[in-house]
């Protein structure tokens, strides 16, 4: 069985190290917060201006002045600080955030990422994605391995407009985990989801990669 959304999120949570400052993208990456291991203390950043993001509120705790980057109501923790968008992106662009987990439409074998725009369709905007991939120390992509038509999303080259060039460090898909030791190097398949075979990964992957299980 390939990983489902929660399985992928649980695997992505293993990328978090104790003491990390982490930014989780909107959508599936948000689920990663549910799988942070006991004993691993991470501080979640929300790019609208909050460090130390707590869980969703109870009905009584809802505060319209307290939302995350996905515009969801949220709570604060004892460690929380609030700041302006300029300070928030100083953290992101200044290289102070250890890790970001983002969704993707396409990833290329050279680490290019496309996740904000499909030409010809209404474009909603890149939000903070371009800043995150340009400034955060380590970029983890969480995505389905293939699109709805069954075509690989891990490609030789992105066909969609880029969010960033050569920025991706780790790709976690429903089939497995690809990692590269450093930017500029080749991705290596380091882990398979349960019951997924090398042949299946090969058949569904256009990008070049090495196998290092």
């Amino acid at each position: 069985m390939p990983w489902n959304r929660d399985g992928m999120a649980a695997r992505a949570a293993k990328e978090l190290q104790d003491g990390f400052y982490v930014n989780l993208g909107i959508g599936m990456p948000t689920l990663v917060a549910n799988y942070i291991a006991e004993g691993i203390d991470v501080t979640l950043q929300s790019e609208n201006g909050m460090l130390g993001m707590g869980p969703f509120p109870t009905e009584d705790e809802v505060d319209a002045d307290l939302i995350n980057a996905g515009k969801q109501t949220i709570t604060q923790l004892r460690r929380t600080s609030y700041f302006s968008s300029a300070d928030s992106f100083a953290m992101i662009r200044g290289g102070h955030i250890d890790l970001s987990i983002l969704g993707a439409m396409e990833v290329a074998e050279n680490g290019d990422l496309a996740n904000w725009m499909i030409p010809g369709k209404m474009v909603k905007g890149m939000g903070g994605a371009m800043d995150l991939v340009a400034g955060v120390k380590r970029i983890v992509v969480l995505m389905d391995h293939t699109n709805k038509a069954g075509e690989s999303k891990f490609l030789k080259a992105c066909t969609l407009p880029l969010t960033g060039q050569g920025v991706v460090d780790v790709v976690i898909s429903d089939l497995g985990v690809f990692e590269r030791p450093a930017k500029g190097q080749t991705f290596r398949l380091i882990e398979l989801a349960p019951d997924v075979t090398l042949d299946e990964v090969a058949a569904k992957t256009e990008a070049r990669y090495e196998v290092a299980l």
Partner: protein
Amino acid sequence: MANKLYDDAASALQGVLFDGMTVMSGGFGLCGIPENLIAALRDSGTKGLTVISNNAGVDDFGLGLLLQTRQIAKMISSYVGENKEFERQYLSGELQLEFNPQGTLAERIRAGGAGIPGFYTKTGVGTLVAEGKEQKDFGGETYILETGLVADLSIVKAWKADPYGNLVFRKTARNFNPMMATAGKVTVVEVEELVGPGELDPDHIHTPGIFVQRLFVGKAYVKRIEQRTIRKEAA
């Protein structure tokens, strides 16, 4: 001391509005938006606006109100996904749109307010955002030139103010408001509470009063929530 206090949004905007002007509007989503000032701007009928704001509101609230009345000619934003009327006007060519990465937008406003006409950033290198922009290498990495932004008017929402225009924001309602306060030729601020001189701790002021020209206490805040997300109470 020059009086900065006004009765309401309409009087605070008196004499500063003109067609074709550029307006910065604070907020992230619907959080920390200047509700009273947006409504007063709508009621003024001022047209051909260029609005700089991270988002464009929703169809019937926030900056969506100014889209309904077709007062906005151009938006400079990072994300506009929550607004159908926006989409319709954009696709029909009625509305111009310039997307900025969110951090670039924040920094352009910060820079504009600080008198910095341009800066280099890695954000957007190798993407559509870099098209037509000067590139320069620093320490072996490529950066692009982005310019500072200023506006004829900044409309800002804060939590508390004193009569000097010193401002305190609340939680994530701060967002773009402090930078926008610095980048408006005229900055008009609405607050939930006006306190007396000396009642704000000077060490806890987020925006010093020099950036604020006009100030009033807003009324009837709706503070609409876009995504009310609730956790089940542990049994």
